[in-house]
């Protein structure tokens, strides 16, 4: 161990950009075992592991790095899966440079490649058959309903099932995985990775109810009646919008619609708006607005769909963008052009129906606000025009109006429209818990997993307390 200054940082081989833009396969290769080992040996085994401190799941990263370095992959996998429901998924899609690897104390020498090792460990576990089902030895007789088969719901489901609960997961879509399946492009997370988890879940006795849109068919009240506790983990799907002149022109789409269509297409489904070209970037000049991870997913999907030109507009600069710097680098390699310090001001159309030009206003960064981020200020007379055939708005997401959707007005909301929960993660309704983006607002998968796990433990406490009182 502690070889960080002797061994160079090395990520698994990246497929050449020219090759990778031609398909939707994952862009990173696998670590070769010896690389995983030598990279893990770089870890300093800190007294205060800032990687863990900065990890929402508080993964015991130094421990499984050491075990990997020692060649004890099975122990490493067991350690990694102790705190993380989907280590292979986090290894792939977490913005490590903002979390664990960003906290790594040797990042001046190149941070430890934590994410890649995590993925390597867990993929090895899948290959070796170490990933087991988790049906409990004894059922505890309690039943929990979970709304949403995304990362938060799934993380909670696993924990609850392990504790002996009967677990039912409801989702309005036809597949298990939520954003993991529909939101995240294949080149970051191949769908097979999610599918094998689904199988593990089903084999462990978790029951999925798909295409079950609560409030629209099965009522929320009925659901509460069926279960001893309910967890709402629906995520946030409503796109945030920028009301600008020309917003209602054709050729301006929401990021999520665009990504879902692409993913469904990739899964072999027929998607009408894709087929008709509305959500297909092929042959188009594409402009994506936004600087988050969703925007990155959109630009890179567009490149792969065969867009003639892909541009990303963001109103702050590179240093102040919310998305992962690593993703920006990958996108740039793949030919995406970034226009920093630029915000759309108007969508225009020569022909009337479809957008063909965006007026862009140049920005500069003003002083830092309370959150420490510098907010952009428009520069007068700095406007210019850009050609566009397809504009994808990736401006973030907002919660849907759940009280209305669930027809449950007792459900209290925060000022941002997310669900209000107490410290025990319980909503204003007894026995109804909430976790993930619907509480936190749009955030990272790893946060959803963390919340889901925490909610599960709160639900268990709630159930046990109920049991104790009943006894």
């Amino acid at each position, binding site marked *: 161990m502690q070889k960080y200054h002797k061994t160079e940082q090395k990520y698994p081989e990246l497929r050449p950009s020219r090759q990778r833009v031609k398909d939707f396969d994952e862009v990173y290769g696998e670590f070769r075992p010896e690389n995983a080992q030598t990279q893990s040996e770089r870890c*300093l085994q*800190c007294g*205060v592991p800032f990687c*863990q*401190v900065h990890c929402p799941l508080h993964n*015991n990263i130094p421990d499984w790095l*050491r075990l990997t370095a020692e060649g004890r992959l099975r122990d490493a996998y067991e350690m990694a899966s102790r705190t993380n429901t989907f280590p292979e998924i986090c290894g792939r899609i977490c913005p490590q440079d903002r979390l664990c690897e960003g906290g790594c104390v040797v990042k001046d020498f190149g941070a430890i490649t934590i994410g890649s090792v995590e993925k390597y460990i867990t993929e090895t576990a899948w290959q070796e058959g170490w990933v087991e089902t988790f049906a*409990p030895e004894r059922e505890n007789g309690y039943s929990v309903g979970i709304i949403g088969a995304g990362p938060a719901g799934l993380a909670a489901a696993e924990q609850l099932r392990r504790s002996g609960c009967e677990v039912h997961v409801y989702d309005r879509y036809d597949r298990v995985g939520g954003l993991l399946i529909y939101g995240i492009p294949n080149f970051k997370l191949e769908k097979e990775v999610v599918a094998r988890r689904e199988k593990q879940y089903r084999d462990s006795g978790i029951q999925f109810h798909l295409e079950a849109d609560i409030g629209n068919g099965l009522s929320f009240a009925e659901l509460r009646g069926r279960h001893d506790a309910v967890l709402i983990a629906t995520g946030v799907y409503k796109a945030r919008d920028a009301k600008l002149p020309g917003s209602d022109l054709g050729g301006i789409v929401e990021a999520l619609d665009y990504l879902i269509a692409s993913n469904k297409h990739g899964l072999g489904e027929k998607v009408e708006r894709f087929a008709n070209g509305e959500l297909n970037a092929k042959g188009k000049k594409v402009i994506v607005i936004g600087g988050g991870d969703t925007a990155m997913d959109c630009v890179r999907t567009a490149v792969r769909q065969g867009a003639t030109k892909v541009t990303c507009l963001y109103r702050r600069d590179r240093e102040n963008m919310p998305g992962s710097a690593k993703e920006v680098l990958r996108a740039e390699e793949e030919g995406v052009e970034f226009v920093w310090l630029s915000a759309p001001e108007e969508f225009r159309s020569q022909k009337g129906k479809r957008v063909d030009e965006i007026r862009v206003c140049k920005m500069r960064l003003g002083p830092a606000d309370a959150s420490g981020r510098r907010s952009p200020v428009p520069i007068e007379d700095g406007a210019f025009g850009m050609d566009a055939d397809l504009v994808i708005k990736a401006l973030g997401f907002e919660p849907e109006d759940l009280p209305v959707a669930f027809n449950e007005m007792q459900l209290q909301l925060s000022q941002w429209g997310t669900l209000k929960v107490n410290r025990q993660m319980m909503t204003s309704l007894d026995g109804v818990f909430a976790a993930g983006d619907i509480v936190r607002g749009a955030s990272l998968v790893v946060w959803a997993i963390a919340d889901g796990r925490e909610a599960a433990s709160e639900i268990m406490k709630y159930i046990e307390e109920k049991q104790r009182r009943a006894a």
Partner: protein
Amino acid sequence: MKTMAGYEDMVGLYHPEDEHDACGVGLIAAIDGKPRRQVVELGIEALRSVWHRGAVNADGKTGDGAGIHLELPKVFFRDYLQRVGNAVEEDASFAVGMIFLPRKDFAAQEEARLVVETEIIRFGYGIYCWRQVPINTEVIGESANASCPEITQIFIAGKADEDEESFEKNLYIIRRRIENEIRERHIQNFYVCSLSARNIIYKGLFLAEQLTTFYPDLNDRRFASSYCIFHQRFSTNTNPAWHLAQPFRTLAHNGEINTLRGNINWMSSYEASFGSRVLGEYADDLIPVVPPGTSDTGALDSVMELFVRSGKSLPMAKLLMIPPAWSLDPAVPEMHKKFFEYCNCLVSPWDGPAAIAATDGRWVLAGMDRGGLRPVRYAVTDSGLLVLGSETGMVPVKGAEVLERGRLGPGEMIAVDLKRGKLLKDFELKDALASEHPYAEWVQPIVRLQEIMQGRPQKEGEKEGAFAPVFSDTELARRQLAAGYTLEEIETILLPMVRDGKEAIGSMGDDTPLAVLSGRYRGLHHYFRQHFSQVTNPPIDPLREYRVMSLITRFGPIENILGEQADLSEIMHADTPILLTAEYEAMRAHLEERGKAAMVDALFDADGSPDALRRGIDTMLAAADAALSRGAHTIFITDENAGPNHCAIPMVLAAGALHTHMVRTSMRKKMSLIARSSATLDVHSLAVLIGVGATAVNPYLAEASVAAAHGKKLFGDISLETALENYRSALAGGLLKIMSKMGISVVSSYRGGRNFDAIGLSRSLVAEFFPGLISRISGIGLRGLENHVLAGHRIAWHEGKVAPLPVGGYYKYRAQGEPHAWEGELIHVLQTACATGSFKQYKRFAQGVYAQAPINLRDVMDFRPDRGPVPLDWVESVSSLRKRFIAPAMSLGALSPEAHETLAVAMNRIGAASNSGEGGEGPERYKPYANGDNANSSIKQVASGRFGVTAEYLNNCREIQIKVAQGAKPGEGGQLPGFKVTVEIARLRHATPGVSLISPPPHHDIYSIEDLAQLIYDLKQINPDAIVSVKLVAQSGIGTIASGVAKAFADKIIIAGHVGGTGASPYSSIKHAGAPWEMGLAETHQVLTLNGLRHRVKLQTDGGLKTGRDIVIAAMLGAEEYAIGTMSLVAMGCILVRQCHSNTCPVGICTQDEKLRKHFDGSVEKVVNLMSFLAEEVREILAELGFKTLDEIVGRSDLLRQVHQGGADLDSLDLGPLFTQVARRGDGPSICTMTQRNEVAPSLDETIIKDAKEMILRGEKIQLSYAVQNTHRSIGTRLSSLIVRSFRPEELQADHFTLCLRGSAGQSLGAFAAHGLRIEVAGDANDYVGKGLSGATIVVAPPPSSRLVTKDNTIIGNTVLYGATSGKLFAAGQAGERFAVRNSGAKVVIEGCGSNGCEYMTGGVAVILGAVGNNFAAGMTGGMAFVYDEEGGFPQRVNDESVVLQRLASSHWEGILRDLVEEHARETGSLHAQNIVGQWDYTRGHFWQVCPKELLDKLEHPLEDAGYKVAKRA
């Protein structure tokens, strides 16, 4: 009660039993056994010449005690008796009792007289009369006078038909009866100095030189004696206690008994079975052998007296109690080994530094401990006298009269048989004793465990001869859970022990909560903190001096230790107390077959029923009692039968309870206690178990865990047997280390000694199960333990799937584990604050610290203001407060040069101080840089390695700090691995780049408190301006140690806490040694105040100080200065990686790697900001509390209160003793008022400088001549200060200033003597010649009139050239022990030396033209040694772990050797050297060349030349 008579009661944290003493001791004997007046006069004379080994009380007049033991001057007393009207025949036998009676309480005095008379008459003797001893109280100090007893003599008539032997024995029994009766009647201030028909003791609380003034009797010429034993005491305490003055009835002792508590316990368990041919019917009168409240020497004396009165000879008694280290010494004959083995079976050694002078009436004897840790020099004169003492020259004997000058080596003795009129040396004495009985036959029946192991049938399931218990995966996991294992514990503690065979290392101290404050139960052993030696006795180096240590463990009953022959037929012998399961099983089977074994479960019901734990303990004790009464003698207590329905009793508790029970019922010596313990994993848990009384331990669950890991192939190809052996040797090494840091060398003396502080154990629990263990703040009791064990048990044995083991977080932070004071977030906030200078940001940090769960004792304290606030403006300034902050010792070597200099520059800039640490400092830093930055550390440290400690170094500072112990590893040495020794570091430390450097555990010139006084004296000579501070680590009893340090003229005392320390050390030391500074500081402040010493020393504290609040609390508990270590590193960028030992620090602070050092991002400003923040917060708190200056609150512990009572599981948590305001003695204030340093007595140098200052300053060559004696200490040192301050070395010739001295030079001759100085002594010299030699030349040779054969006689003392960096020494004679230890540059020729010669040497050349002692060149990593081995046998005296030895094979090296021998012959006129040179072709074949292994590939001139002509072998 512990106290016996006249003690003050316990106050606050002061406990009288912590007191230590040390001294000067000696004897004079007429070898013909005929009384002479001369003997008495010389004894009185000698006492006058050891005054500097004693100490003076705060009143300036009260000594710590002195006394003299003489043959009874019968003529004098008979004349007296006749004069006062007694009819005494000329040949009538009579006895005299010298008795201290209560002086002020007349009723008690009357009662005491009555008791004395009654017991005498009851035994059938008549009484002549009482005599009031004439005394002169004018010469004693105020406090001695206040406690002065009524000093009387009683005269007892002997019986005509009785021989002297029998009379003497009866007098002994009478005295014991008197003492017991007096204790029964609670009469205070009564003491019998002596009661004998043969001898008498005059002693008291005065300075040594006042002996005859106080007791005019002694001036009477009729006081004649064939021997006299004398003693001068230096005690750490200043409570006047007349009875503690020495000599005692049998012996006088200079040293310390480290194993006292265990020895006394064992002794009391023998008591029930005393049976002596001689004392027979009176056995009951002898109990207790060691009366309560006896000092360590008193206890040693009591037991030795018992042995000699019961018929053993005095030499035999010495060997029983203070045996030599024999088992690994190849020079000990087999017959002696059998004899020593027999002795060891009977008595566990009384271990510790000891020079004793003793007599039983027939023998007069002096003896030395096994380590040779005290000086004893002797001379035999042609008038038939043996003159012996701590120093040579105490009694002036003319050179021409001396037949022999010698010294006592480790474990040696010398004796005069007064009856036969014969002087006997060590070997003769031992040989005679060993051949007295057929000891080989006597020890023959002892069964060796190894033999049983070899003979036993293979067990099923046993692989490769090893047998670890096999559990299924789930069962193993459950058991591990129940025992409290974590993955961290297994992975980072257990497995490395298997892989490396030794303990894992960590860095950066301990910032987790004290066990008693933690929300998690970590096992009972976490409440025990290891004791360690500091100042009053030296720790041992268990790695390089393992030959004096032993883990040999004997099982089985010893019935009667006083009898002629003890029955050893049931004794079993094992090499270690750590039993692997295979051995455990074999032993059990062996004993079960013979009906001698009993299995006893240490379990309690897991059903949650009330008091289950107590019932479990009772059941266990009852089962053990029953087994013993059935005839078993070995109790196996085990928790292996724990399961769903039964919890394990914490094994430490089970073993402690059983041991205590058996001691109380006097059965302990008849049984062995073997603990099969699930919770024993690391070395600390093992040490606690043995420390509370387990005979041996079987760590079965750890073994099973090792086996499981072995099954997973985690150790490569090694066999399970090897894996387990590695684990055992790691445990054994760790146990030796823990014993050694207490200065204990044999496990039998450590066992049951409870050498711990309990921190957070309930007082009643301790009193019941661990009596004698010190527990000052109370804490968890039985109920709390029961709850914790049950909670763990429930998780472990929960139905359904077994839970995974917790990940840990105790050693390194984990989100799921223990809190750590240094959290990631806080580190960042503090670093931002320091980088930006934002006090607001700093306050965020402080708030974050305050919001943490309690970690330290101060976290459960708060302020109790006694007044309203004052405006902030009124409070003293930041600038003024910052000056009290110190950047504590972190060496250049540990720190990178960048970090080290940044700290120094920052602290200098704000007028505060930084400490160089142990590693020297480059002279270029002594002057400010061109840009004005001053990188000179104003505190220079002197540590045990003495690296770079030169006269120049010591003259460039304001303060010299003696590091006696450090928080990270008190009592341990250190090692700077070769890869960290860069060219730069090698330059500073006078070493070779790439060669590792060892810091020994002790300062080899501080084995005792008077040695510390001497070192302080040396340092105050070499720098006439600097103050001297002494760094100690908190532990119970530190207050009395600090008092001793204050009396040794220290100006400042640093109390470090256990948490601190940035240094690398074994985890068990970081985690389990030392106590919180809150306790140590409070105790020190209280005891210094009680003793009236507080005003003459400043107190400083360190250990995890992080906020202004911490500093204010430290002030209230008594500290005036505050060291900020870890935090100043954090300010410079440290992020607590805790890998300081691996040279991989990513922020360039704690590394020597060039590449990494570039990443250092610290700055002077960041450190200055930190200090300013702390000062500002202190100001805010002071304003809030209503004080204007920090001085106003120093020692105001009444302004503190406890705000948290600890967890619900605690019986109580009582910080009250920390807050006690003690009464001051005298008018000394309770804060330091010294504006200058405490000045020491002037040295001869004062005269020298007066005589020649002008000439010296003009740089004239001069030669001065003086007569010297042993009271002239540190000659040349003060002069050297003047030299280095006035000249650069190149300006002076080697003999520019020459001192010609005649006589016996005192200690530290030529200490730190600088280039340009030449000292010639015609005579001899004492210890520490050439200590820290810095360029001077010293020549010591016998006076021209001497008849001595130089190579056969001792001419210089112990620890010569310790830490010498350059210069030369030629001594025509032998040196004592530890010659040239840590020499790093001096060239020296001598003609023989004691043990441990050239130890840890890193440079220079040592030539020894004669015999050397054992363990030569241990840990020597540099320099070269040549030994002239005429007799043969040198190779077996070498510790060849780090050196190679060969015959001369290089003309280069032969040339160097020959030049030095010639120079020696020239300088000293030694005939021996002249003979060697004269027959060089012949004699060169007798030389051995000793070269460090690490040096072999770095030598400029290799050890072998191609064309070298090998000398003819003799």
